[in-house]
C-alpha cells in the first residue's frame, strides 16, 4: 500500500544519518539500525492504528471499482479504465446521472462490498462473472434491486450453489440470467429447470437440461441402427 510506505521513507534516512554520525558506517550497525527502525515503524503504526485501519477500509472500497471494472451511465457508452488502470476524469461529471450497468467480473467483491452496488436504485444490468468471493449469502442480498434489475450474470462464480439461486426469485423484472459454469451447483441441468420454473418471464442461460442424465435411448438406437425420435 502506498501510504504506510511513505512514513518508511521518512524514518529511514533520519536514522541512518544519525548512526553514520555517531558510530561510523558499517554493515552490522546498519543492520541493527534497520532493526531499530523496524521497531519504531511498528510503534509508529501502532500509535496510528485507527488511521491505518481507516485507510485500509478506504482502499478496500476503492478495490470494488478495480482495474477491469466498467460502468455505464444512462444513455451513455461504457466507461472503462485505460491501459494504465486509470479512469478518465470525465466520469466525475456524471455524478447525478444514475448508473445503469455495472460489470464487476473477476472483481474481488464480497458481501460487504455489495453495499455500494445495492445503493444503485436504477441498476439494470449486473455482471458478476468469475467473482471468487460472491457466494449464496451475497445472492440473498440482491433483493433491493428487484425493481430495476433486468440482467444478471453469475457465470463461473466458484462459490454459488443452487441454494443461493433460490433467493433470486425476488428479482421479478429479471429478463436474462446467466448461470452457466457454476462448479458448486450439484445438479446443473435440474437446477436450470427449477430456476426457469421459478422465474417464468426470464431467459435462463445455463447448463443443458439433459446434463447428468444417462443417454439411454441414443445407445439403444445405435444397437438397432434406427433413429428413435427423442
Amino acid at each position: 500500500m502506498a501510504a504506510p510506505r511513505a512514513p518508511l521513507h521518512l524514518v529511514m534516512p533520519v536514522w541512518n544519518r544519525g548512526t553514520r554520525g555517531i558510530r561510523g558506517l558499517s554493515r552490522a550497525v546498519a543492520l541493527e539500525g534497520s532493526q531499530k527502525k523496524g521497531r519504531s515503524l511498528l510503534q509508529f503504526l501502532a500509535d496510528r492504528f485507527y488511521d491505518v485501519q481507516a485507510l485500509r477500509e478506504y482502499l478496500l472500497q476503492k478495490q470494488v471499482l478495480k482495474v477491469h471494472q466498467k460502468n455505464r451511465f444512462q444513455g451513455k457508452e461504457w466507461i472503462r479504465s485505460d491501459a494504465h488502470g486509470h479512469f478518465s476524469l470525465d466520469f466525475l461529471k456524471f455524478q447525478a446521472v444514475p448508473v445503469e450497468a455495472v460489470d464487476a467480473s473477476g472483481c474481488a467483491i464480497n458481501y460487504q462490498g455489495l453495499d455500494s452496488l445495492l445503493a444503485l436504485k436504477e441498476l439494470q444490468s449486473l455482471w458478476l462473472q468469475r467473482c471468487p468471493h460472491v457466494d449464496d449469502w451475497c445472492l440473498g442480498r440482491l433483493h433491493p434491486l428487484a425493481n430495476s434489475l433486468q440482467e444478471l450474470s453469475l457465470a463461473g462464480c466458484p462459490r454459488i450453489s443452487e441454494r443461493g439461486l433460490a433467493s433470486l426469485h425476488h428479482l421479478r423484472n429479471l429478463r436474462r440470467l446467466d448461470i452457466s459454469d457454476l462448479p458448486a451447483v450439484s445438479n446443473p441441468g435440474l437446477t436450470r429447470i427449477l430456476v426457469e420454473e421459478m422465474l417464468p418471464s426470464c431467459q435462463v442461460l445455463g447448463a443443458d437440461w439433459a446434463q447428468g442424465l444417462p443417454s439411454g435411448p441414443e445407445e439403444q438406437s445405435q444397437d438397432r441402427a434406427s433413429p428413435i425420435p427423442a
Partner: protein
Amino acid sequence: MLRRALQLGLGRGLLGRGLLGRGLGTHRGGSTLDQNGKVSEIKKKIQSVLPGGAWNPPYDTSYLPPEHSDVVIVGGGVIGLSVAYWLKRLEKPRGAIRVLVVERDHTYSQASTALSVGGIRQQFSVPENIQLSLFSVEFLRNINEYLAVVDDPPLDIQFNPSGYLLLASEKGAAVMESNVKVQRQEGAKVCLMSPEQLRNKFPWINTEGVALASYGMEYEGWFDPWCLLQGLRRKVQSMGVLFCHGEVTRFVSSSSHTETTSGEEVTLKRIHEVHVKIDRSLEYQPVECALVINAAGAWSGQIAELAGVGKGPPGTLQGTKLPVERRKRYVYLWHCPQGPGLETPFIVDASGAYFRREGLGNNYLGGCSPTEEEEPDPGNLEVDHDFFQDKVWPPLAQRVPAFETLKVRSAWAGYYDYNTFDQNGVVGPHPLVVNMYFATGFSGHGLQQAPAVGRAVAEMVLDGHFQTINLSPFHFSRFYLGEKVQEHNII
C-alpha cells in the same frame, strides 16, 4: 553341601556365561534401545509406587476426565460446545482456563442439535432473541473465519437463504405487525405482505384465512446443524478443551448461610466436585471444579435437581425448580411431485404447522407443535404417524393445495428443551447455587441462537456481566419473581 556349593557355583557360572552370552548377543545383533526403553519404563513404575512422586497409574486412564478442571460443561451439544469455544476464545491469557465438556452420548443419537430441522430466523417478538439470532447468523456466514482449524478442509453449512414466511389469521395480525416493528428496529429485514401480494409472489398458496404475512428477506433460512456441531467440536478440540464420554451423577457442594439486606436468612451453595460416571461402567471420577455450566438441553431439569435447585418449600427461591422439560416433537419428510418449487421459504402457518423445501427433488420437511393436551410421552423417540394424518397434513393441505397428494418418505422425533414458564432460554448463574450457570430452555430455537448464547455465557463467566448482548431478562430469578418474557413466535 559341597555338591550344593558346586551346583551353585556352576549355576552362577552358567548364569555368568548366560549373561555374557546375552551381552555378546546384544553387541552382535540386538538393539540396545529396546533394553533402555524397558528399563526406563520399569523405573517409572517403581517411582510411581514409591511415596513422594506423582501418581501415574500403571494402566491406561485416558478415558477418565481430569481430576481438576476450572469449568465443567454438562452437555456436549451445540450450546455446550459454543460456550466452550467462546470461553477458550475470550480467555486472557491464552490457555488460562481448563474446560471439560461432559457428554454421555458421543453418537448424539438423542441430541436436539442433530435432530433439528435447522432453521434460523430473526422473526421473534422479544428483542433479545432477535439480537441473538442476528449475531448467530453473522457467525454462520463467517464460519470459516471463526472455526478454521489448520490443515482441515473448510466447513460448508449449506445455508439456504430462502427466508421464513409467517402467516397470521385475523386474530394474530395486530401482534404480527407489532412484532415486525420490533424486528425492523433491531435490524432484521422483514417485510409485511397482504394476501394479494402473497398470491402474486407465491401462486401456489391458498390465502383463505390469511390476514397478514411477514416474510424475512435476508439472513433467514435453514442450514445443516450436524456440520455446525462437527465444526465446533473439531475447533474446540484444537483449542485444548477436554472431552469426557460420561454422565454427571452427583454434585458435591458446600453451603454457607448469610443474611440478605432485609434480614432474611439465605443458604448459598457452592459446587466443589462433579462426579462423572463413565459410560457403560460403574467407575466414576470426581472432578474438582470452579464452575459448572448446565447445557444439558432436554435433560437440564434433572441436572439442576442434582445440584439442589428447587429443593425447598414451594413459593420460595430455594423451592423454585428449573422449569425446563423434555418435550417430544415429530418431523416428517414427504415427497410431493407437484409441490412448490425452488423459491419455497420456510412457511409457518397460523395453525402452527410448518414445512420447508428439502433438496431439489420436490421433497419437503415439516411438522407441527402439538397443543398442551396432546403432548406425546417424552419417554422415547418413537414416531406417531397418526399425528401426521390428523394434525399436520390437513392444515398444510388446506394452505398448499398441491399437498393433497403426497407420500411420506420418513419421519423422526426429537426433543425440545421446553421452558414451561415462557418458552425462552435461561441464561446466567443461579442466585443460590452460585457457581452453576444455565444455558438451556430454548424451546426449539436453541440451535439458531447457540453462537450468541455461548458468547454471552463466556462473557458472564469471564467478566461477570454481559458485554455485547444483554441477556439479563433471561435470568433464572424471573421464575421466582413471576416475570414472564413471553415469546409469541414459537414454532
